[in-house]
Structures are given as structure tokens and as C-alpha cells.
């Protein structure tokens, strides 16, 4: 059976970290599972956990009175669900729902924040990596704002 730190190393967000850092992070982690349609977290709730998906798909949803629920992004295996645990006020901005049965690694955000504060080198490295995740998603969101498939022609 594979250990948590071995599983962590498969996720791009943790790839290449030294073994002692992986072991430290694994101390804040556990394996979890969600049934299809089960919520991982809900908009506005305390963001005290984040996830790395191992199997299945997670949908990030936003609910509006006019349009109902909208899926704004889906998260696939080895990708991170959630970074609000890292930034004040530590509240989720979206719902995260299991679109299929999901296996994931759940991380205690407060535990990891504490370790980051105790070990600034690890803290900086994790901040850098999660900033990259956030930037990638921001760039994707900007490109989707272009609505490239919806452009009207004249002919």
C-alpha cells in the first residue's frame, strides 16, 4: 500500500519537493472519498480544508438567482481544489461538488498554515506553488472571458 507522501508526490503542486517536506505536508493530510453529487465545500463556509483529486472529477459551481447553478470549472485527477485556505478571510468563494465518485487527499489548511509559519522556506515554496495554480486558473478564466467561440461574424 502506498503512503500518503508517495501519493502527494504525484500531484504537480507538490512534485519535486524534498522527502522531508512531503512527510511534513502528509502529516496534515488524509484520504477521503465523496459520492457523486456530494459537496466538498459550500460557498461562504470556512475554508479550512483543501484537496488534491486522486480519482474522479470535481465541479466548481456558482449559484445565481437568475441562472441557477453554473459550473465554472472542473477539476481533474492530480489537480488542486481550493486555495482560499491560504488567504484571509479563509472563506470559500464557490461550491465544490463531486461530479463523479471522487477519491481525494484532504489537507487540514490550518495545520499546514502553521507548519508554513514555523518553516518559512517551506511556506515560501508552497506559496509560490499555489500562486502558480491560482495564476493558471486566472489566465484560463481571462481567456474564457474572450468568449472566442461566440464571436459573431458579418457574412
Amino acid at each position: 500500500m502506498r503512503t500518503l507522501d508517495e501519493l502527494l508526490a504525484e500531484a504537480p503542486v507538490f512534485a519535486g519537493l524534498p522527502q522531508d517536506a512531503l512527510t511534513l505536508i502528509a502529516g496534515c493530510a488524509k484520504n477521503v472519498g465523496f459520492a457523486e453529487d456530494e459537496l466538498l465545500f459550500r460557498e461562504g463556509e470556512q475554508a479550512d480544508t483543501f484537496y488534491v483529486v486522486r480519482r474522479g472529477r470535481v465541479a466548481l459551481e456558482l449559484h445565481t438567482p437568475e441562472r441557477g447553478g453554473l459550473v465554472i470549472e472542473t477539476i481533474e485527477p492530480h489537480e488542486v481544489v481550493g486555495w482560499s485556505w491560504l488567504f484571509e478571510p479563509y472563506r470559500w468563494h464557490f461550491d465544490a461538488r463531486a461530479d463523479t465518485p471522487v477519491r481525494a487527499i484532504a489537507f487540514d489548511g490550518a495545520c499546514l498554515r502553521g507548519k508554513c509559519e514555523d518553516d518559512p522556506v517551506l511556506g515560501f515554496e508552497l506559496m509560490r506553488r499555489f500562486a502558480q495554480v491560482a495564476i493558471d486558473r486566472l489566465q484560463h478564466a481571462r481567456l474564457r472571458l474572450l468568449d472566442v467561440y461566440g464571436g459573431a461574424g458579418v457574412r
Partner: protein
Amino acid sequence: MAAPASAEAPVRGAMTPVPHRVLSRVQETADTWTLELDPLSEPVQPRAGQFDMLYAFGVGEVPISTSGDHEGGPLTHTIRAVGAVTRALCALEPGAVLGVRGPFGSVWPLGEAAGSDLLVVAGGIGLAPLRPAIRHALARRDDYGAVSVLVGARTPDDLLYVPELERWRSRLDVEVDVTVDSAAAGWHGRVGLVTTLIPGAVVDPAKASAFVCGPEVMMTFVVRALLERDLPLERIWVSLERNMRCAVGHCGHCQLGPTLICRDGPVFPAAAMTRLLEVREL
């Protein structure tokens, strides 16, 4: 006096529309229809990647890529109603007649890609020009290694050829992955940019060829993602559409830098086009 021979004479009948009758009209999405056409005289037989000029009598003419395989079958075009001409074409009922000039332009290099893995990346209406290439590869499946078809669309309702996508997806010898830019809750597929599908595509970059068609911005980012996946630039082809009017390289409306899309394209090696696509004024 006999006219001098020209090495670049237009193809026979290039400027004369051939009347075609609409055999069938299938609505693909809210604004997109597929027409099957039967020639009333000499048939037009485009190859995968080529386009025809479709003429709605009294309204105008537009370039539309072939979206079917014409080995004995009807001429097939998928048209998005975005302007006066395309709206007129999409409104044609079975039995109506329109004009067709063609075929024009370059083809997807299916022969050159044979023997390699094939990665097809389509965005929006860009799936239409790629469908004949995909059908060709699936009909001659042993000629190719792994085949991966990645499709992006605005919403689930904007996906083209859904029954055919499902048939392809049910095959064990082709990977079909679909993503949309946004969806209502209840959609059980991926939501995100089509570029996010590229890292997981099952092809071996070292021996893969890639065909890409969609809006220009999308193709620019797809080519970048393919390069990040280590596909060689010289194994990537893109299909462009600019303001094609005459289709035979005379009018110059579709000029992009040193090329005329109608004459030199629409299918180009990405190596020849990626820098041009990033020049704002072109």
C-alpha cells in the same frame, strides 16, 4: 488568336457556381445547420480541409469548409448563421437550390500524418472542417497510431455532431475528450479551456501529428500548449479563415502577411503561421 497558356490558370469553372439542390437540412445547434447537397450538373468533390464557395442566390457568397466525406456521398457543409448570407443558406429547405464553386484550397496532410499518432484539436465550429479528417483516420484506423480528438465549445448546447461524438467515444481505438467554457449545473463533463485537455491526451508527442481548427486566438494558445507538450512545431497544422471572397487568389481580401488564405491555405503548417497570427495589425 489563342490565349496564352498560364501556369496558374484558375481551376476549370472556378468562377462559375454549379447549382446544387438541398437534400437535407439538420439543425446542429441553435445557430448552426448542416446541409447535404446534390449536384444538378458536374459534382464538386472537396477533400478533407478544403472549402467551397456557397452562393445564396440574390444574397451573396461565403466560403464554407467541407464537413463530410464525399466518397460517393452528398456534398456536406455545416454553416453557422452569423450574417445575411449564412442566415439565408441556413434557411434553405430541402429542395431549394444554391450555387457551389470549388473545391478550393489545401488539405489536411493525412498522408503525411499516416504512421504517426494523430491529435485533433477542435474549437467551436472548427470541428466541422476537421470532421472529414477524423472520419478518414477512423476509416483507415490501422494507418495511424493513437488517435485523440479534443473538442472545446462555448456551452454543452453549442457542441456539434453530438451523436457522432458519442459514436466515436464508444470506440476503443480513439480517445474523445470534450470540454466547454461554461455549463449549467447538471452537466457531467469537463468545464475549462480546450488547452487543458492537451496534457492528458494519449498521444506520444515524439511521434504525433496535430491538426488544429477553431478561432484564431484559440489556435494560438493550442499551438503553445502543444509545444509545451513537446510536439514538434513542424508536426502541427492549423486551418485559418479570413475574408475569402474570390477563392482563387485574385482579389486579395484574405491576405495574411505574404500569404493568401484561399490560395495557399486554409490548411497551413503552424510553423508558417504562428508568428503571423501574433501580429496585431494583420
